[in-house]
């Protein structure tokens, strides 16, 4: 019989650190208990500096009513919440430097806040996944420009 990975002694964080997505886990006090390599790479904040810190202390720009509202909603309702690029552009300010610069100078992000439930189905933690959608947004804008140009 195949042994499920969770029951082996393989450290799952190896997988989490190879993802090309930002992964963060927060407890109810908004303290960071997981901060993957992707987040280290773009935020320039080491794991040792991030773990145990309150996320809004580390990123004061997140001290908004909307951020706490959404995180609160996930803890309370046990349902997902979203920060879409369309409305927020980004949640974490990560400047990007690319060889061919077009469009935004900050990484454009879609972020999903998900509930993490314990065995009693109580939301004990929330995770934030950060997706880099800068290229997508670039292409979309180029498309809009081309459409405008064609209709002229």
């Amino acid at each position: 019989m195949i042994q499920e990975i969770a029951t082996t002694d393989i450290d799952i964080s190896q997988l989490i650190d190879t993802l090309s997505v930002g992964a963060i886990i927060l407890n109810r006090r908004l303290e960071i208990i997981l901060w993957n390599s992707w987040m280290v790479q773009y935020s320039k904040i080491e794991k040792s500096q991030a773990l145990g810190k309150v996320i809004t202390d580390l990123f004061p720009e997140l001290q908004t009513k909307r951020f706490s509202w959404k995180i609160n909603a996930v803890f309370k309702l046990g349902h997902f919440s979203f920060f879409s690029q369309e409305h927020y552009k980004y949640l974490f300010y990560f400047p990007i430097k690319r060889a061919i610069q077009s469009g935004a100078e900050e990484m454009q992000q879609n972020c999903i806040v998900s509930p993490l439930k314990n065995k009693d189905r109580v939301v004990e933690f929330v995770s934030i996944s950060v997706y880099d959608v800068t290229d997508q947004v670039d292409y979309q804008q180029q498309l809009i420009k081309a459409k405008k140009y064609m209709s002229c």
Partner: protein
Amino acid sequence: MHNEERLELLQEMINIGFGRSSAAIAELLDVFITMRVPKICEFNLSGVGDYLVKQIGLSDKISLVRQMFRGDFLGETILVFPEQMCSQMSNIVLKMDKDSSSESKVMQEEVLIEISNIIIGACLGKIAELLNTTLSYNIPQVILKSCPIDHLSEQKIGNDNHILVINNTMSIEDKSVSLYLFIIINEESLSWLYQTLDRSLKSLSF
């Protein structure tokens, strides 16, 4: 089991979800909200337009928010907001927007999305939880903003799809407004849903 019984069971599940959510929504949005027992019915594609026109009236405008979900059953949800609902949003927006510099138009969209996200969570999230499965969701999107109701027919929906329509009347600060949630799923997902409902009903009966 008859379809009516299954829909009744779904309605009951959603009602449990709403019971838990309405107090939380009220607290989160800082407004007084109550939700009535939702009504649920199954439609084929052609019947939906007529149903909406009958319920809302042809003259009214609507906004649509779409969100995809996937798991043991998958599909998409479309929440239909009548214009009346959108105008009520402005109060809520003002309360939420104290620390934000973004345009109020963007904020209004954001609140539509937030409300639909909560309602979808209360409906689908609760159904999934009671059926012992989990769903994940894509970012919700406003696909139509204050458009005449006949624009709905321009939205393409695949032919093999079934539509569960959940009519939810909620009162926001004394004014009641009806929202319509479409759960669009294909044959395969619907039969999975119905089979699982049958099983769970069997396990409930003594």
